[in-house]
């Protein structure tokens, strides 16, 4: 039977490549492991070897084409065998889910070993490794596959009826370019420091290079986790950012009034964040697509009926996103209290795992630091993130006259795989409208 060679995964997070040149032609004989093509990915140029011996029956893509992991690019077999014309629909690899949770400050003594990707929220009861009505491998072989980190669904079984043998699994494990992506390791705990100083302290080693002096700083675990999460998010979602502005003059008046009566709040420090959260919840109710996630495997959009709003907190070690759960059922004061508590504990690195998981939507308040607007990166597995920027007094036109109003830019980055620009724009319009007309926000509290 003819062997269909699907473009395999060649490295971390790569899911497509460009064929630079073919090293063989249709009709050539090839040996197993003989290099057959050069592919360019955004990491490097890679030579791909043939996994089988035989005659090249059909080349399905040309030099210069962009191919995706899983696309059938070559068919090898015996001369005269029939070849399926259409290439198999390219199955994009399951994006390794980003691990953005640094290890919580729990009382555990033992280290948690790297565990599999975060749990899916839909109850997936007992999915079997391959076909769900007939196993492609014996229990022994399945256990071997798990041990070697091989995904059975990506192996061609050489046994009868497509059955996968131990040898198939071992070969796949030995050849990294054929191996399925391993589960992403969780952030194995980050530095637990509470340094008092503000300036960045790097305990790196300095050395000289040809260009000049450099300092090599080993990555803390939190940084490694953030690095991976940001990369994966960018590769997973189709990021588009839509920017708008809100006239927060009225909101600030209300806020100022509250601040003047601070002592009546029982020690809770009120900020603008609770208002932003409530406006977000109200806007999300009208645009539920932005409060959802995308279950690629099932091909379903998971609309969340609850609103767990994450807030990005800048700590000396890096970015952490604690989550305010069920923001819809808390009043502004309760939100203020929770926001205060979470932020403090985030900086002290004392958040529990529960407090940084389960978010459905994220707000990032960059304003206090400065800047006009930005293009935030979506916090997987959510589908949208809103950035709140600096409040500035600016001249704007109202009723034909120039007036000075306190304006704030807002940006929403959204996943265009699921949310179209128009929908995101409508969401943002509603969000901005609620902030600009706080009375309309109040009626929705």
């Amino acid at each position: 039977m003819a062997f269909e060679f699907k473009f395999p995964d060649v490295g971390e997070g790569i899911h497509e490549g460009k064929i630079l040149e073919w090293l063989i032609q249709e009709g050539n004989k090839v040996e197993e492991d003989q290099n057959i093509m050069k592919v360019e990915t955004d990491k490097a140029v890679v030579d791909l070897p043939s996994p089988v011996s035989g005659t090249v029956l059909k080349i399905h893509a040309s030099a210069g084409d962009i191919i995706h992991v899983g696309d059938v690019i070559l068919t090898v077999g015996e001369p005269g065998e029939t070849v399926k014309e259409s290439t198999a629909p390219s199955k994009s690899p399951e994006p390794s889910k980003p691990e953005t949770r640094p290890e919580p400050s729990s009382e555990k003594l033992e280290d948690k070993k790297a565990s599999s990707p975060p749990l899916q929220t839909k109850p997936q009861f007992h999915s079997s490794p391959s076909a769900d009505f007939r196993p492609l491998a014996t229990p022994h072989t399945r256990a071997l596959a798990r041990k070697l980190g091989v995904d059975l669904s990506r192996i061609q079984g050489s046994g009868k009826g497509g059955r996968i043998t131990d040898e198939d699994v071992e070969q796949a494990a030995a050849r990294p370019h054929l191996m399925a992506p391993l589960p992403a390791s969780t952030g194995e705990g980050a530095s637990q420091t509470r340094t008092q100083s503000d300036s960045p302290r790097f305990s790196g080693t300095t050395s000289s290079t040809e260009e000049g002096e450099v300092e090599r700083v080993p990555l803390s675990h939190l940084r490694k986790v953030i690095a991976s999460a940001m990369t994966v998010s960018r590769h997973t979602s189709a990021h588009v950012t839509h920017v708008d502005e809100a006239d927060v003059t009225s909101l600030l008046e209300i806020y100022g009034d509250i601040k003047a009566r601070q002592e009546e709040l029982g020690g809770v420090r009120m900020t603008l964040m609770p208002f932003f959260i409530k406006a977000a919840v109200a806007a999300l109710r009208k645009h539920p697509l932005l409060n959802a996630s995308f279950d690629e495997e099932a091909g379903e959009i998971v609309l969340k009926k609850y609103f767990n709003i994450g807030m990005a907190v800048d700590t000396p070690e890096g970015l952490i996103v604690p989550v305010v759960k069920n923001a819809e059922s808390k009043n502004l004061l309760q939100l203020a209290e929770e926001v205060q508590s979470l932020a403090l504990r985030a900086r002290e690195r004392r958040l529990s795992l529960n407090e940084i998981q389960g978010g459905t939507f994220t707000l990032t308040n960059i304003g206090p630091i400065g800047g006009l607007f930005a293009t935030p990166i979506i916090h997987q597995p959510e589908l949208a993130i809103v950035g709140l920027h600096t409040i500035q007094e600016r001249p704007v036109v109202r009723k034909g006259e120039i007036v000075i109003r306190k304006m704030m830019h807002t940006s929403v980055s959204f996943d265009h795989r699921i949310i179209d620009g128009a929908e995101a724009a409508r969401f943002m319009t509603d969000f901005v409208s609620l902030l600009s007309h706080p009375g309309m926000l109040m009626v929705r509290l």
Partner: protein
Amino acid sequence: MVVGSISRGCQVAVIGGGPGGYVAAIRLAQLKKDVILIEQEPSLGGICLNEGCIPSKALIHVADLTLDATQAHEMGVDIGGVEVSMPRLIAWKDSIVSRLTGGVKMLCERNGVEIIHGKASFASDRSLSVETSSGTVSIDFEEAVIATGSSPMPLKNFPLDGETVIGSKEALSLKEVPRRLVIIGAGYVGLELGMVYKKFGAEVSVVEFLPDLLPQQDDDVVASIGKRLEALGMDLYLGHRADRFEKGDPSRVFIVDPDGKEVVLEADTILVSIGRNPNSKDLNLETIGVNTDEKGFITVSDRMESSSPGIYAIGDVIGGPLLAHKAYREAKVAAEVIAGEPSAFDNVVIPAVVYTDPEIAWAGLTEKEARAKGLNIVTGTFPFRASGRALTLNQPEGFVKTIAEAETKAILGVVIVGSSASELVSEAALAIEMGAFLDDLAGTIHPHPTLSEGLLESVEAALNQAIHMVNR
């Protein structure tokens, strides 16, 4: 304790000492984990050992004995009269149960598992509060396994009082055989216990809300059971809803037929067994972020992980087929995952057995399920009346049916109806789990004369080359 509260610490806390719990505890101890097992009843073993699988099988065996005794005449054996003493039967059954529960306790202790008797609930995602007879004990753990099982579903208007209206627990410890027994719910429990008490001499009626018996089973299976129920003289009311009852001597049970007409049944005892609910309510799961579905079953991944890291759940409390042997496997998976091994529940086959007369056992897909999936299948059915062994056992009822993929001949499922079906199905389970093809099984010599040859013959029938029956 006089003052203060000292926590007990451990690596893994297992909540529930039933088939899921004690197996997880022992396996974890084998994998060198420090384990505390918490059980709220005075004895281990859960429903299975104490008021489910084991006691019911004991009673079923004795019921079959009494039936065999009365039918031995045709084989040339005459036994005078057959009398069943319920008190002595229950005492015998209890002796088996206590032997087994004592055995489980011994196994736990030998493996270094510490057992605490009390009711546990989560105080945080790393600690439990356990109410024991000598006060509250606080337990800190690194990981926890929830194996709290399930409880009988209540039926409106039929509150259990333990005398007139009983559940399966009481049904396994009755002091005397009821004269008239009405069973609500024709599931496994209802059918098994119904046949038991019929054989002990009761008048038995079974009321079932759904229009079909065993709706997920193939028609030939349902037909065998239906025939037997009729032969035994049990009255079956399918499609009837149990509305209410009036206590009395006898009590009267009011059921409503599919057209809305009321039917009255007389009963001395009413057994309610309409299903089971997960025991997930009093654990404080919401506060620790463990998600459940709308029925209360805890949702888990295939590594038994709940939505809260470090908290696992297994057995009836996570739903799926409510079977002890599923819990056994899940317990081992959870233990291995906690110990850092790359384990997961990837079993394709969870065999199931209904201990009616004749027994029904199946592994893999039924014919109905295979066709519903759009698979192209072949089947082969071998009737036990063509089996020498079955005839020598005077048990000619039933059959073995094998379902296979038409193209590859991979075995997809096996259904067995007949005596000892429960013992025969494991071979089928192994075959399917190993991905066997029809010729693998056909090429294996099965000893003669046995009932297991029935499996061989049904496989050959699927290949159209059965010897001991006419191939269709």
